[in-house]
């Protein structure tokens, strides 16, 4: 072998070795929803750009929560990237379980992230998870039924209007319910809805000394209003309805109004799935004139567990998946209506995206929720439809079970609130807050 050939062979070998050492396989745990599945299908773009391979572990939301919490709290290292929400991020960031995302590239443009999202995914001013998509909640309503009822939906309605409209739109003979809302037990299901609704009634979970507030008039008003309206105009068995059940009812034309996650807008306006796709419009979640609306704020975000051996590759993936160029990639492949919404300011400055019927209302809803000042009276916690403390998920699940039992008529609203008050105070005392 000539010297030239030897040098070429050695160079080739070293390049192969170097590229082999560089190419990593990163494992990502994620939730099963349309946006995440779309990202899974576009991963080849990331691999082509970086050489890194991605292995996906897709799980149902509750299974994912349990799985990633077990792994990160034991430093298991099974995942290099985790999909987590606004509830977990500040808690895990405070525990030192996540890699701070304070050194993202200039090209990434972290300042472009919507302030409400960045705030909810930070701890003490440091971003710990990059928002993949953000959502709030809003009213989705049937324009034909509203017109038939002789009403016009204001852009920012009150609860009084919603109750009246629901009653007028209800047509039991034709199986049309004026309003569909979550009632299902679970802190992320009915618990999230009633907490966000209670904010607009002037209620709060805790006072500034972490005392439970379910014995207040504001909570009694919230629950009595909800139950009264749903008994009048809601679907049968609403106490067990969650997002999917209401989506199914709305798509089949059985709901006049539905107040739920803004991401539902793309489902109900999709003619392939929805029988009422061309008869839907949107409005801000209702209020009571107290300065707080009843919409929530949530983001599914990508975080890197501290201690992962593949931090550099994981960071590259997080940057890729939550970048402006990823949004453009989705738009080019699947259209603007399918890009992950609610994370970046620049998306809402894009005239193409603003043509999507629910774009402006999604942005308005997100901007009207403030996780750092969610209630009429001051609270010691961050979060609109949750309190970002580790104990909340367990307590709120139990509280929502009591509320669901009241919706189902198994106990009175007063009994449910009394039990919620007692169990919350007990749990907070046991946890050392009181």
């Amino acid at each position: 072998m000539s010297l030239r050939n030897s040098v070429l062979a050695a160079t080739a070998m070293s390049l192969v070795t170097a590229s082999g050492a560089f190419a990593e396989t990163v494992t990502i745990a994620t939730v099963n929803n349309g946006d995440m599945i779309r990202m899974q299908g576009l991963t080849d773009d990331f691999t082509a750009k970086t050489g890194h391979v991605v292995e996906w572990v897709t799980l149902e939301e509750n299974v994912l929560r349990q799985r990633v919490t077990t792994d990160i709290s034991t430093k298991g290292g099974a995942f290099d990237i985790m999909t987590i929400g606004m509830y977990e991020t500040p808690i895990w960031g405070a525990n030192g379980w996540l890699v701070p995302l304070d050194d993202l590239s200039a090209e990434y443009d972290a300042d472009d992230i919507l302030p409400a999202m960045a705030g909810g995914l930070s701890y003490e001013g440091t971003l710990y998870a990059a928002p993949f998509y953000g959502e709030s909640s809003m009213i989705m309503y049937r324009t034909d039924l509203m017109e038939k009822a002789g009403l016009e939906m204001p852009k920012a309605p009150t609860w009084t209007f919603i109750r009246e409209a629901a009653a007028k739109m209800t047509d039991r003979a034709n199986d049309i319910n004026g309003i569909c809302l979550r009632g299902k037990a679970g802190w992320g299901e009915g618990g999230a809805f009633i907490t966000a609704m209670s904010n607009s009634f002037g209620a709060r979970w805790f006072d500034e000394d972490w005392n439970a507030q379910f014995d207040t008039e504001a909570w009694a008003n919230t629950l009595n209003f909800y139950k009264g309206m749903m008994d009048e105009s809601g679907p049968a068995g609403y106490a067990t309805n969650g997002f999917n059940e209401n989506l199914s009812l709305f798509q089949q034309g059985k709901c006049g109004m539905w107040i739920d996650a803004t991401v539902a807008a793309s489902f109900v306006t999709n003619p392939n799935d929805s029988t009422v796709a061309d008869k839907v419009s949107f409005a801000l979640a209702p209020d009571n004139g107290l300065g707080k609306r009843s919409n929530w704020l949530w983001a599914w975000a990508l975080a890197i567990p501290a201690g992962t051996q593949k931090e550099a590759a994981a960071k590259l993936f997080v940057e890729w998946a939550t970048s402006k160029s990823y949004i453009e990639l989705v738009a080019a492949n699947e259209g603007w209506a399918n890009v992950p919404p609610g994370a970046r300011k620049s998306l809402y400055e894009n005239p193409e995206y603003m043509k999507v019927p629910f774009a402006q209302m999604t942005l308005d809803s997100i901007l009207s929720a403030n996780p750092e000042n969610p209630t009429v009276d001051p609270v010691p916690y961050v979060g609109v439809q949750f309190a970002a403390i580790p104990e909340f998920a367990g307590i709120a699940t139990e509280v929502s079970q009591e509320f669901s039992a009241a919706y189902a008529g198994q106990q009175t609203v007063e009994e449910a609130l009394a039990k919620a008050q007692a169990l919350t105070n007990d749990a907070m005392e046991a946890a050392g807050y009181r």
Partner: protein
Amino acid sequence: MARTVTQKRKIINTAAAWSVGLLIFFPILWTILTSFKTEAQAIADPPLFLGFDWTLENYAAVMERSNYGRFLWNSIVIAGGSTILGIIIAVPAAWSMAFVPSKRTKDILLWMLSTKMLPAVGVLYPIYLLFIRLGILDTKIGLVIVLMLINLPIIVWMLYTYFKEIPGEILEAARMDGATLKEEVLYVLTPMAIPGIASTLLLNVILAWNEAFWTLNLTAAKAAPLTAFIASYSSPEGLFYAKLSAASTMAIAPILILGWFSQKQLVSGLTFGAVK
């Protein structure tokens, strides 16, 4: 004296048995039917039973998105491995309990069974930490060990009941003929207990195949079996019931076929001895 069964009673019994059978099988049938519907048809009200346009689009979507073959292979290795390992340990254990009992044998058997009553989540963290220390998180061998351990009480109990039905004199005769302990268990006891061992084996394969707590919590991308495959199609925010049904049908199909072909052994095994 044999009881006479009238023709009318026979018909009633048969109809009742079929009704109960169909009732039990209906959720599986509905899952299979839903897997051939579109997502819109899957949530139609009133529900569509057979009158819909059958489609394979859900199967195509599932095959495109997931590596079904890898999940299937993991399930085969985990269910098969844990059952074989369990049988290897349980045969001598059940032999000693059946043929050389002590006064504490019944207590030990009950204690073994009582471990099945502990909620699995109660030991999740200790097991998870052990797996991390041993470096067997997200490995098939780790799951083989765990599933073998959680099913071992049932395997021992079942084998113990079968062995108790075998006359001890046969083993004594073998011993008198000069058989060693190993030869006695391997060449005398095991061949006589083959039907019992086979039904125990089948039942444990089914139990291991369907196990969905440890297989979800101790795996990530590499060792995840079909239970994780199904979980990846469940979503509380989005109606993907048709795809979920297609994934479920693909996950249960192998074990359903196995159960179908081995139902005689399963039934005879389950109605034998103390479990009848």
